[in-house]
């Protein structure tokens, strides 16, 4: 996946109501532009723990009257695409960002700067199998979200990439499992046969 990066940011958080309940995504302006490059090649499924992605983000200057003066830090997160949210209520998207569970994996947190932001991230080993996009939030000095940007469109239908999780299985575990199971079965039947033989002996004597 290759794409060029631009970043546009602006818009201060306006509604006081939102700050009572938590910031809502719909209240943020999409003023950051985020791009992700996956290595080694586009369209390939990324393997957790092995493959890495390169992210760049910057401020989008093209909106007039929007400044980035309030932005202090940027946090970039890995988010689930709709197909990975189906039938999985624990990954549900909610407008209220406090309750939103779309973006559960933190990639990086950095102080804000309008351009020249790059980060290379190896997909963590606890990332599950699924389809993802990347979103960056800009925070003000009160640590509230003030703007965001993401690699996909508003409907989250393009520029998605897939991750394949590690298996969690190990050969050593499999072997240990077989050994203990065999021990259980053998000791059970061993006991049983020994007792039967002992009973026969005492009956014969």
């Amino acid at each position, binding site marked *: 996946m290759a794409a060029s990066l631009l970043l546009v940011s602006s818009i201060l958080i306006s509604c006081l109501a939102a700050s009572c309940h938590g910031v809502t995504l719909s209240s943020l302006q999409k003023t950051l532009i985020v791009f992700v490059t996956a290595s080694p090649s586009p369209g390939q499924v990324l393997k957790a723990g092995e493959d890495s992605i390169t992210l760049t983000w910057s401020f989008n200057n093209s909106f007039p009257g929007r400044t980035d003066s309030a932005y202090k830090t940027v946090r970039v997160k890995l988010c689930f695409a709709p197909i990975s949210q189906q*039938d999985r209520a624990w990954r549900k998207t909610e407008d209220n960002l406090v309750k939103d569970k779309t973006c559960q994996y933190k990639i990086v947190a950095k102080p804000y700067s309008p351009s020249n932001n790059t980060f290379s991230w190896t997909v963590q080993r606890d990332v599950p199998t699924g389809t993802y996009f990347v979103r960056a939030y800009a925070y003000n000095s009160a640590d509230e979200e003030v703007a965001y940007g993401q690699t996909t469109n508003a409907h989250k239908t393009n520029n998605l990439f897939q991750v394949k999780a590690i*298996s*969690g*299985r190990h050969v050593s575990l499999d072997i240990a499992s077989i050994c*203990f199971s065999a021990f259980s079965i053998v000791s059970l039947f061993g*006991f049983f046969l020994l007792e039967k033989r002992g009973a026969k002996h005492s009956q014969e004597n």
Partner: protein
Amino acid sequence: MADEENSPGSSMHGVTGKEQSFAFSVAADPTILTDSTAKFALPVDSEHKSKVFKILSFANPHMRTFHLSWISFFTCFVSTFAAAPLVPIIRDDLNLTKTDIGNAGIASVSGSIFSRLVMGAACDLLGPRYACAFLIMLSAPTVFCMSFVSSAGGYIVVRFMIGFSLATFVSCQYWMSTMFNSRIIGLVNGTAAGWGNMGGGATQLLMPVLYELIRRAGATPFTAWRIAFFIPGWLHVIMGLLVLGLGQDLPDGNLSTLQKKGDVPKDQFSKVLWYAITNYRTWIFVLLYGMSLGVELTTDNVIAEYFFDRFDLKLHTAGTIAATFGMANMVSRPFGGLMSDIAARRFGMRGRLWNLWILQTAGGIFCICLGRANTLPLSITSMILFSIGAQAACGATFGIIPFLSRRSLGVISGLTGAGGNFGSGLTQLLFFTSSKYSTATGLSLMGIMIVACTIPVTLVHFPQWGSMFLPPSKDASKFNEESYYGSEWNEEEKEKGLHHGSLKFAENSRSERGRRVLSVSTPPNSTPPCV
């Protein structure tokens, strides 16, 4: 004297049946002769069954059997529900959907419906010690199999297979009835069942702690949960070896005596089954038990994940809260039986029925509250009250079951137990498998189902004792205890005298009339009721 009452496996009050409250000991009961020649740590009767239930003792063989038995059952509960608190991790590792998780939960309780039926036969053939050891050690490999699981299908199959081990309930109850006198067997079996059920709670505490420790030791999350499953597996093997090494089938330790008892005429299974299934009360209790034990098992499966997701708690915090649900079994189940006995002393069987209805309906109402609670403290409070209601209702159910039938008690107990598991599978299927509603809504709907399906208890009517709303029949000579229990035998069988055990039981059951018992004249053909 017919051995039916005391022969192994016949005196089953099922689970938590309590004929006499506070009956920790019948040592002073003059009607049960103590065998003073026997050299046991506890006073025993003529069959060398203990007359005393000393909970904290490990005296061989009686109390040792009790502890081996309930701990084996506890271990099987631990392994059957071990996956439940780890679901937040497993669902990411195996890419599960809500449907998969729901299906696995249903599978975990379905297996034992069949295995419990087989277990009865196994106890008859092999004796309870080997039946228990066989089951627990042959299900150890299924627990270890969790380390191989890499897909939703594999997960469901393994949980199904682990669920078979819940049949240790049958061997537990059977084994206890060979060791304890029938007058105290109700309390003994009830305590064993309640403490065994606690395993469903203990596992919610144990597994997240193990997972955390293993992760801190350096494993990745997706490997750590697999390693955590080894511990329940080892518990299976250890308990199996202890049962084989320390246990014995009978107080005298002799299995072949058990087989010699086949000389006593055994009842015809087809008749026993017929009288069980044609008694309408059986089916009402099958439904009711599904709404007490069934919802308890369902909640064991879903509650940890519910707290983790709804309140954003850490895994071991959610596990701790979920554990209190199952651990309440330690007292709430015996409490239900005790309340049943206290109600019966004053109001007889009608009191028992009202007690059951009140406890189970209260459980249902608190389940509705649990689903609707939006704050953590309110949610935990509702959950605890729900657990007390549902588990006490389990205890109260088996305070009534012994009186439904004398001849078919074993089959009715078995059917009721199966109804419990079936109720669990059904509620999980209806409310916790599809994504149509959230888990919170599912809990509320389950609560409504509990309240609605407890109403049929009003239909349970005994001609000699009445029902919740109807008094007993006025014609006491036609509708009495003897005629009720005698109706399970036909004339031919009565001529052979096969029904004497039932008649004896009928006399003893006159206490279910409540305070009126002293004013009732006894039928001319029977001896006065013994107190």
